């Protein structure tokens, strides 16, 4: 039981003022602007939007500034902010097939219709610190090449699907019941819709490690990146008062489809199976990790034995959320004086009893 304490208001107010001053740092150094964070720390913003579960670049950038770059704190701020706003409704499902592609690669097929586009990536870079960047200055302008903006880039896994070797992703039943973690408390067993929502919000480090564990043999499966794509997708919504669908904006998304060979089970013939990852902005590591964990969590549906942590949906889903996790871990630093006093009494009593017993046995032995 947690018993609240009172007092220390002045000290708390002063600590907040001190924290604000520390946030600003040396006043001789120019203050960082929200626009600068949005533009120049864009992948940090993408992560805060993805795990904060709110697409709003300026708000995420402001949260990063307020949190002094503490990502989990920033995600916490964004989550708290969303609770102050009314919900207008649900979007029409976004169609990643219609994405305006900025990056698209496949590790399974080298020749894909529409081509492999590296886009703005850290891949194939030498990971050497660039001292020139410390000096600042404009980068060399990016190269350009002719491009057809209306060209379609078909989903790579669809190509295998035609042979029947790839499980179908389905045509989508838009009338299917869709769970919403922000409305109903988590309950097990959880269907894939809830698992995916949970994984999108889940901490990147946690999901990354779980995904890695599946590669190392905890839930055997040798996955391939069937396709990774990143770019802009239109968002549509049907306002009640209009009764027809309108586009209300665009979001940048990263999507990853992992392919895993599957030897078949009593339920499903041998084929390739899919794992799916989706994240706001350019969160590629997260989308890839999510796809690995999504596939592992499909164990029950595919008739596989659940033997590894990444296959245990209750374990994964109950511990993936960084805001919940940090809340419970960090609450340990709040005053627990009464709690601990009770424990102290208990241990003293047990100790006295144990000593008494020892003394008793000692006497008997004499």
């Amino acid at each position, binding site marked *: 039981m947690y018993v609240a304490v009172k007092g220390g208001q002045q000290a708390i107010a002063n600590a907040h003022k001190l924290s604000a001053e520390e946030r600003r740092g040396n006043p001789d150094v120019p203050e960082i602007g929200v626009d600068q964070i949005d533009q120049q720390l864009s992948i940090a913003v993408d992560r805060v939007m993805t795990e904060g579960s709110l697409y709003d670049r300026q708000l995420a950038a402001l949260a990063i500034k307020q949190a002094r770059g503490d990502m989990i704190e920033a995600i916490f701020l964004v989550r708290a902010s969303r609770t102050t706003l009314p919900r207008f409704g649900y979007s029409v499902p976004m169609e990643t097939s219609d994405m305006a592609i900025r990056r698209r690669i496949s590790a399974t097929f080298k020749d894909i219709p529409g081509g492999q586009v590296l886009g703005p990536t850290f891949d194939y870079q030498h990971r050497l610190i660039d001292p020139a960047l410390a000096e600042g200055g404009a980068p060399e302008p990016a190269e350009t090449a002719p491009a057809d903006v209306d060209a379609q880039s078909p989903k790579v896994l669809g190509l295998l699907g035609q042979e029947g070797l790839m499980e179908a992703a389905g045509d*989508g039943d838009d009338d299917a019941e869709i769970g*919403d973690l922000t409305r109903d408390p988590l309950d097990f067993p959880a269907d894939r819709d809830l698992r995916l929502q949970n994984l999108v919000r889940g901490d990147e480090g946690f999901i990354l490690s779980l995904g890695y564990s599946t590669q190392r043999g905890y839930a055997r499966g040798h996955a391939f990146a069937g396709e990774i794509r990143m770019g802009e997708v239109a968002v549509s919504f049907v306002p009640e008062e209009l009764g027809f669908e309108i586009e209300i*904006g665009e979001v940048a998304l990263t999507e990853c489809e992992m392919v895993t060979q599957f030897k078949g089970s009593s339920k499903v013939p041998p084929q390739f199976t899919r794992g799916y990852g989706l994240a706001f902005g350019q969160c590629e590591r997260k989308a890839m990790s999510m796809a690995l964990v999504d596939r592992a969590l499909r164990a029950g549906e595919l008739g596989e034995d659940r033997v590894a942590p990444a296959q245990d949906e209750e374990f994964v889903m109950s511990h993936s959320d960084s805001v919940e996790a940090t809340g419970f871990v960090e609450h340990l630093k709040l005053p627990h004086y009464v709690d601990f006093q009770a424990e102290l009494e208990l241990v003293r009593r047990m100790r006295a009893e144990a000593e008494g017993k020892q003394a008793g046995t000692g006497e008997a032995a004499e």
Partner: protein
Amino acid sequence: MTQSGGSAAEHTARQRWMSVLAKADWSELAPLFAVRDDKPDYRFLRAPETGLVMLRGRMGGTGNPFNMGEATVTRCAVTTQTGIAGHSYVMGRNQAHAEAAAVLDAMLQDQATHDVVEHDVIAPLEQAAQARRQSDASRSAATKVEFFTMVRGED
């Protein structure tokens, strides 16, 4: 709230301009809206209000929907002196953007102002969006890669 009537074709035309207005960069829309001296008198049916829309993805990209995460959205509804209702839903928290989009939606439904707003506002915004898309696509196109498989031994 006014229920908008109209045929499917009218819907399609309206969907197009509402999409252009919602997706426009405010830095591009604001000056185009500010210079208009033919703006009708209007009152709010719904003052600009910011809320959330839950964005949905699809399992495996094409399968059943799931709830991915929310986005901030600002909506606004106005009615003009001549009784035309204009609506807007615009991603983000920019209330001025939502208000301008609602007023322009009303003006585009009004035969008296449709053509000039289409010409002065919608067309340039559409061109700007197309140019942005073309620029993004061209820069990405330069990173298109051809991987070669190194075959060892003889064919």
